[in-house]
């Protein structure tokens, strides 16, 4: 009996050299599109919750004010642009920020207030008065999204 020596039929190999390129393209794509959050507050802010919420459309036309407490402290702190400020500085800083935008989009400018739910209202009212004084009338009370 004669045995036929079975030879493995070899498929033509697929070239793998392009696959790392694809991975790199993907990696770069996501690296470019990812937004690095840099608007963290220096203190804990426990924002309130709400149901009737709206999503903000023009994030680039906004400025964020953080209001909260340092851990274990009872003196409220206000933060704007990575530094702590006093209430009476709000108007000037927001006006400065708004001035960097094109004039046509100034009416769309929104101030996002990220405040702690335990804060007393007089402080929030003071901030709102500051904003009214420079005619920055659009505000958003930021809320904690349930995840």
């Amino acid at each position, binding site marked *: 009996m004669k045995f036929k020596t079975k030879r493995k039929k070899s498929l033509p190999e697929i070239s793998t050299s392009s*696959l*790392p390129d694809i991975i790199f393209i993907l990696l770069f794509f996501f690296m470019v599109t990812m937004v690095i959050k840099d608007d963290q507050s220096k203190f804990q802010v426990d924002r309130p919750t709400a149901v009737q919420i*709206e999503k903000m459309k023009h994030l680039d036309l906004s400025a964020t004010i953080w209001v909260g407490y340092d851990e274990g402290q009872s003196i409220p702190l206000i933060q704007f642009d990575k530094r702590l400020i006093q209430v009476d500085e709000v108007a000037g800083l927001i006006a400065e920020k708004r001035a960097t935008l094109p004039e046509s989009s100034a009416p769309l400018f929104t101030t996002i207030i990220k405040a702690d739910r335990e804060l007393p*209202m007089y402080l*929030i009212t003071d901030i*709102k008065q500051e904003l009214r004084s420079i005619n920055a009338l659009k505000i958003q009370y*930021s809320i904690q999204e349930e995840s």
Partner: protein
Amino acid sequence: MRPTQPNNAGSMADIAFLLLIFFLVTTTIESESGLMRKLPPDEDSSGEIKRRNVLNILINNDDQLMVNLKPMEIDALPAYAATFIQNKEEKSTFPEMELKDLELLGETMVSKQVISLQCATHTSYGSYVGVQDALASAYRSARNDFSEQHFNRSFDDLLEAKAIERVKVVQSAIPMRISEAEPFK
């Protein structure tokens, strides 16, 4: 020298997919959500408003509510405010009705409602936002009602369908009028 063995390509594709899925899961599109409000201009011309047209809401230092001089729980506020805003039964303690010339609908009866919200100095911000939220849902249900009555579709539907003309009519029929007074001591 041995010829170099071509390495297997199948696993490389898997790695690419893993990376893709990893980034898809970890990247979140940043969005800010909250309650949008517009502050009144600085030179506020607060004309006299008739008492019956105003729903007075007070929040005291202990975060308790007082609505038109009666204590109320926050859960009851949306329904009460919605009936106040519409005043369908034309109660004498609720706002006056007036004929307003609206686009698409012509002259329509709408109420002259205003909601006044006043806090104490040490009212907590959380309960203030809670009341704002309750009022927003009151306006929403009032608008839904109005819209269903006149357009046979809810306001939410109109918003979803981006029927801007009709949305504007409903908004001008039931404008969100929340005035905020200075906090009291």
